[in-house]
């Protein structure tokens, strides 16, 4: 997938830059973005290290296991075939909780840990191929579960909105619809890909 995204974006950029006569800014962008990528990685390193540390303490003291038990009735419907109360389920619970609370930078390390545990529990014969559970978790994270859209509200406030939080009901309905559509799509795709194999 990444090879298509990368080549697609680069080819489109060169084409559009030629059309809009912006080759010079494209060159500058390449050089600048290298630095930006490293900077992003550095700040990510700090955040991921912090949350991985906290996560490990919570995990070995049994806290995440308790949390996972609470979430199991709902999550076991989305993620089939994972060990009950296992590490994968625990990390998935943490990931989703962090998303709902709006802790964007914590949800990434939790989500990555969950992906790795899913891989370990399923030990698929084709490690290069993403499993259905991995896809569901990733798609869940490309949709927004956040209850309070703090960034949007803060920027609305900064731009003199009379009521920055008035968007809340719309955000909730929209998030639920988008999530439901994406998850339904994964279920349909799985059925289709199983039929193809038969």
């Amino acid at each position, binding site marked *: *997938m*990444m090879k298509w*995204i*990368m080549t697609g*974006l680069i080819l489109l*950029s*060169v084409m*559009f830059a030629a059309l*809009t006569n*912006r080759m010079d*800014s*494209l060159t500058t*962008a390449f050089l600048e*973005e290298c630095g930006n990528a490293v900077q992003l990685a550095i700040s*990510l390193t700090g955040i*991921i*290290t912090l*949350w*991985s*540390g906290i996560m*490990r*303490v919570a995990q070995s*003291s*049994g*806290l995440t296991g308790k949390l996972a038990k609470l979430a199991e009735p709902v999550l076991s419907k989305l993620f089939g075939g994972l060990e009950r109360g296992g590490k994968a389920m625990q990390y998935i619970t943490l990931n989703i909780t962090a998303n709902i*609370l*709006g*802790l964007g930078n914590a949800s990434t*390390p939790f989500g990555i*840990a969950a992906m790795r545990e*899913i891989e370990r529990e399923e030990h698929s014969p084709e490690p*290069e*191929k*993403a499993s259905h559970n*991995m*896809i569901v978790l*990733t*798609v869940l994270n*490309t*949709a927004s579960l956040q209850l309070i*859209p703090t960034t*949007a*509200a803060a*920027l*609305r406030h900064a*731009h003199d909105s009379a009521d920055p939080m*008035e*968007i809340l009901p*719309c*955000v*909730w*309905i*929209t*998030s639920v*619809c*988008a999530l439901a*559509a*994406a998850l339904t*799509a994964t279920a349909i*795709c799985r059925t289709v890909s199983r039929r193809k194999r038969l």
Partner: protein
Amino acid sequence: MNISDLIIPLIFAGVLIYGLCRKTDVFAEFTEGAKDGLKTVYDIFPSLFCLVISVGAFRASGGAELLTSALSPVLDAIGFPPECAELMLLRPFSGSGAIAVFERVLTSSGADSFAGRTASVILGSSETTFYTLSVYFAAVKAKKTRYALFCALIGDFVCAVVSAVTVSILL
């Protein structure tokens, strides 16, 4: 003080206290986890790097503006605010880029206009899809991601449509 400012400190302190009560060596476990965190960044960095420079190049090429102006007559006809088209296009690729475009919409159309509200709902109910996909699959070294991208983009599309619909009905 905001309630959301309490969450991280409370989680950190709470987890440590709980660990101590359960007789966990919290320092050893924390540093062990931190080491895993470092390895994680090492694994995802190359993918992240590729995505950041590709998206940066695309933004600099003016492609988003060009596509937006090509799309806007169509969007206008179906009642979707054309000011939000660039936000819709950029949002799956770049978090900071989306915020820059969002602020431009708020400045030019006003935060409480139809375009401003729709843009707010789009920003509040979507995520940086491509960033998530590249990081999550890089972590497990999965090259064949099957229907993940397709399903994620369906979610983004529904998000854009429903945001305009809910804003025009509810607000």
